[in-house]
């Protein structure tokens, strides 16, 4: 058998064998959201960043760098502590996932927040599709903060990236990012 034909058959066999395994490995939108909250509970912020959609991470980095570029922002107390960099250039050089992970760690890594997140319960209820590529996962979240229990049904958007469902920024979160007070604004 000529080499080319054998190679073709071999590749075809490989593809046929690999396809079901690949398909089975793909998580449903519901499973991704469940895993997303498990990373919060366990404090595994790197795993959380890996579940985010690349476009969401890029959008977040653009926003954060935009704030860092405002006059005096990098001199603000907490900037280096939060992002582990001293300048806008260093910040811009960070991969978006690393920047996101550092932001999560600085905001949610404290003992009090870790305790709240560890006790948060999430029940995923199902999803609604918007077109072929966006899934909105509906879930119920129960969280106790300062002896108050919050019990809310929420929705989280996911989009495919390289065949995997990945989490987008919610509109609220994106809005919050747009409205984060500029460093130093209180002094003005």
């Amino acid at each position, binding site marked *: 058998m000529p080499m080319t034909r054998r190679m073709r058959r071999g590749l075809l066999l490989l593809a046929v064998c690999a396809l079901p395994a690949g398909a089975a490995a793909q998580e449903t939108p519901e499973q991704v959201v469940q895993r997303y909250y498990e990373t919060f509970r366990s404090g595994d912020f790197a795993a959380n960043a890996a579940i985010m959609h690349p476009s969401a991470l890029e959008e977040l980095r653009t926003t954060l760098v935009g704030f860092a570029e405002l006059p005096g922002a990098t001199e603000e107390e907490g900037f280096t502590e939060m992002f582990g960099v001293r300048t806008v250039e260093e910040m811009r050089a960070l991969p978006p996932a690393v920047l996101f992970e550092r932001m999560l760690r600085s905001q949610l890594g404290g003992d009090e927040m870790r305790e709240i997140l560890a006790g948060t319960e999430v029940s995923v*209820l*199902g*999803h*609604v*599709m*918007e077109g072929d590529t966006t899934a*909105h996962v*509906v879930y119920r979240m129960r969280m106790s903060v300062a002896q108050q229990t919050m019990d*809310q*049904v*929420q*929705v989280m*958007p996911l989009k495919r990236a390289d065949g995997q469902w990945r989490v987008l920024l*919610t*509109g*609220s979160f994106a*809005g*919050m990012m*747009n*409205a984060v007070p*500029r460093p130093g*604004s209180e002094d003005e």
Partner: protein
Amino acid sequence: MGTGRWLAVCAAAVLAAVPAALPAQQTPEQVVQAYYGHYRAGELDRVVALTHPRSLEAFKSSIGRFMAFAGDEEDSPFGEMGDLESLPADSAYLVFMQGAGQEEEEYRELFGALQVQPLGHVLQGDSVAHVVFEASTELSGVSAREVMVITLRRQGSQWLVDPGGNLLDMVAGGMMPLLMRAGMEAGMSGMLDDEEDHDH
């Protein structure tokens, strides 16, 4: 025509009439469209009619707790605590809504520009549906969009909206995330405009 045939004709007429007489059951998506349509039009009595009694009762309890805590009855649209307690839950909600946000210009602007497009729903058992919808509005020329979810419960054969007993959720019909986003983005836009003016 004998009695038996008359009975048969009458029975057939009744059977034919019954489906028309019963209100056509709306889907959860249609109820959500109608609910926010009434909000947009300021038809608060119709908003109340589409709100689940469970939410209305929870709202009345929350308001009562708030009044007891705040202890300031002058600003309350209910006057004294006893006035609130004597009102049915749906009337209490209506009185509060008529006296509260509806007079605010920003509130009217936000709800006047509200557009809602349901995307579908997720059922939880037979009697609860969570409707996912895209909502958009405008404030001071700045538009905001948000995909949101609201819960509906069956009451007899009808789906009714259950925004929950949380005061903010009830006042805004579950729209608080969108309203906050619109407010924040409009505020942010204003801040940036001020900065540009200052720079020039």
